[in-house]
């Protein structure tokens, strides 16, 4: 096999343009975000699109960045957990997760918040059941499910 040519790509991540070089066109977006851009929000959980820890928003839709080629994100808006808010100025979902203390280890929480952000953009007032269905393919091992659902509901509809 031939060596892959290095190529420079530019991504719109959290409202800013990030340019970096890749040496393999199949590199998933997750590794570009984490290793080239140094972001911590999207997390490696399975690399198979099964657990949701790597979820980011692509033009507002939740995608699994561990199986989504970085080059396919060119020309689209990528938003990560960092792009929603900061500890000083959290997004309402992030604030709701703080208010509900909806974290144990927190490793899966990126996926929960990003998936919920996608849900809320299309459904401003989801029921508990709709939230559970929306998060049905996001895995949590610590058993924080009840708090997570309450947090999403709080973000939409108040305490």
């Amino acid at each position, binding site marked *: *096999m031939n*060596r892959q040519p*290095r190529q420079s790509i530019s991504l*719109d*991540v*959290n409202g*800013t*343009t*990030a340019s970096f070089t890749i040496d*393999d066109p*199949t*590199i998933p977006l997750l*590794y570009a975000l*984490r*290793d080239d*851009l*140094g972001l*911590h*929000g999207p*997390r*490696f*959980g*399975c*690399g*198979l699109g*099964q657990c949701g*820890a790597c979820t980011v928003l692509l033009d507002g839709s939740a995608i699994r960045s561990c199986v989504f080629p970085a080059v396919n994100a060119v020309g689209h808006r990528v938003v*990560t*957990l*960092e792009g*929603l808010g*900061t*500890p000083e100025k*959290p997004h309402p979902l*992030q604030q709701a*997760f*703080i208010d509900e*203390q909806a*974290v*144990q*280890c*927190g*490793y*899966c*929480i*990126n996926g929960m*918040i990003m998936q919920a952000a996608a849900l809320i953009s299309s459904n401003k007032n989801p029921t508990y059941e709709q939230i*559970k*269905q929306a998060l*049905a393919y*996001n*895995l*949590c*091992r*610590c*058993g*924080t*499910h*009840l*708090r997570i659902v309450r947090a999403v509901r709080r973000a939409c509809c108040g305490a």
Partner: protein
Amino acid sequence: MNAISLPPSLSRREILKIGGLIVGFALPMRLTTAGNTTDTAAADIPKVLAPDRVEGFLAIDRHGNVTVFSGKVDLGTGVRTAMTQIAAEELDVPMAHVNVIQGDTLLTPDQGPTYGSLSIQNGGVQIRLAAATARRALLRKAAQRLNVDEHELTVDAGVVKPRHGDASVRYGELIGGGTLALGLDQDAPLKDPNSYAVVGRSQPRLDIPDKVTGRFTYMQDFRVEGMVHGRVVRPPAIGATLLSVDPDSVSHVPGLIKVVRRKDFLAVVARTEWGAISAARQLKARWSDWQGLPDEDRIWDYVRATKIVRDDVTSNRGNVEAALAAADRRLSSTYDFAIHTHGSIGPSCAVAAFEGGKLTCWSASQATHNLRQQLALMFGMSDADVRAIYLDGSGCYGRNGHEDAAADAALLARDVDRPVRVQWMRADEHGWDPKGPPTLIDMQAALDASGNVSAWYSQFYGPDGVAGKVKLVAAELAGMPHETAMSPGGIIAGTAVPYTFTNVKTLAHRLVTTPLRPSWIRSPGRMQSGFANEAFLDEIAVAANTDPFELRRRYLADDARAIAVLERLAQFAHWQKRSIERKAGGSTATGRGMAFIKYENNRTYVGMVATVDVVRATGVIAAKHFAVVQDSGQIINPDGVKNQIEGNVVQTVSRTLIERVRFDRSRVTSVDWQTYPILTFPDAPEIEMELIDRPHEKPWGVGEPSAAIVSAAISNAVFDAVGIRLRSVPFTPDKVLAALKT
């Protein structure tokens, strides 16, 4: 648009700033006492590690900032926040002035691994005593300084002043630039819990704002300068030997640095993470055949046939054999509990660096002090030349793969002579983390003519060994020195029961081997025993036509706290005495079951009532609701305790209804979330709970006890719903349907 600013990677020669403390990084490590930038007296001193010294656990700088050095670590349980509360409370300083450094072998005392629901019960209590000792010493200094009686002094936010008068002095002034060189005083006066302002109240977890915004640095996020990426290539069969490897098969991979082989240990190292993943996937290697695992379909025959190396009698009262022989009625049942994996959402990860003949390893290990010893053994180094540093990882429920990833990273770092990060892939974690071993329990009991339990006899079958050090995969594959004994954890600690039956014998048959490398997973052995004990007691209650609460109260009459939990639970759950009549008809049947535990017979009490639905046609069980009452003594952070109970219940519902490690004769075959599914949101139960706070009692563990009886509560509820006894975890639909047909 602005360019994204890259977070700086940590230079190996720079300093690692943790909280208010600056800790030198390059080995040999030195601790500076500089509290912050205005503190110039940054004298290099070796950190005291003795667990009988105040300065082992605490440092207070001249500004009054407190650093707690905790050997116990926060595995996602909130321990960091709870330790902060304890120190802040006992010293009377704001929580914001307290930083906690965890699990760094150069800085923190060895308080034992973070397991067994002991972080607060043991670790927190030590830190409390250190704080109380420090407080008394500071008050004595203040009394001299202010020329008043020590007992006239009060402390508010680290400022000491007499009850009357304007004079005051700050902790920081009393310390100056010095240290608190004090022995831990077992008689140091502890604050009266009635005066607590911080402990006993729900305090928001300190780590959550960073964790929900991507600012937190998990182990998996940690980087050091010059670091490269490793991926392991495990044998396709557990005991296979590596016959040959073809490095040319990956020479085209961009950024490849090296294919590393040492005996059966195989790995790749690349400049980029994706390069390492690509190379690991494409590397061609030939392995020998190996089929040393037993037939999964006959696992219980295998366990029963495994050689017993020792019998541990965990309780023995009266004469069980005679009582069984003389009994009017005898009951016997066998319970089994499948092999489980930890299933941390983030696979194990570590970074290791060799420099000047010394090894530094960053790991999410629950036992960095043990890990240091294991790495030293593996590489033939002295413990002093290895430093293991804890960083929070993905949730850890026992000894998972973190230590193994650390050994992988260290082996590669030595080989390529630069810092290496090893991130396990999903299949590495599911396939190679050590497992909760298969457990079989034979139960026997006798009832006398009055329906009293005249004999209780249990025989537990589990692997030999204790909670020692689980052998490192890399050391074994590479043929380097490693432990040989099995370490399944303290799996027999839950075999004895708190009930005052006249004749009791509980016996653990310790097995010479078990199919997959064992370790402890949340409530190890106690979950299996809790299942068998509490489900079997429900069988007895039905046979004796006695309400299960009433039966338990009868044999716990001398234990007021147990009785209190049972009474609160019956009330809280609106328990109605069980009708022994089977409920007729209906495609979905609803039932309720209760279970109780006094954890290890000497601490935390939990009772719970589960409500389940059973769909008769499909055999599917839905765990709908749990009512839980717990007495864990003094509560440090009520919301933290509730979070742990919720996690215990939800995780154990998953383990009970769904989970089972699958394997063929060569390997684990459940290597992702499709082949090892866990509970998802639509199936999570509702949970309500009541905590009995006893602020004047000792604080007991909460991270495990409630998990230990979830399986029994569900089994008992299923019996209530449809009249079948589920004695084999997981309670999968095929088992339910088979039981319904008989």
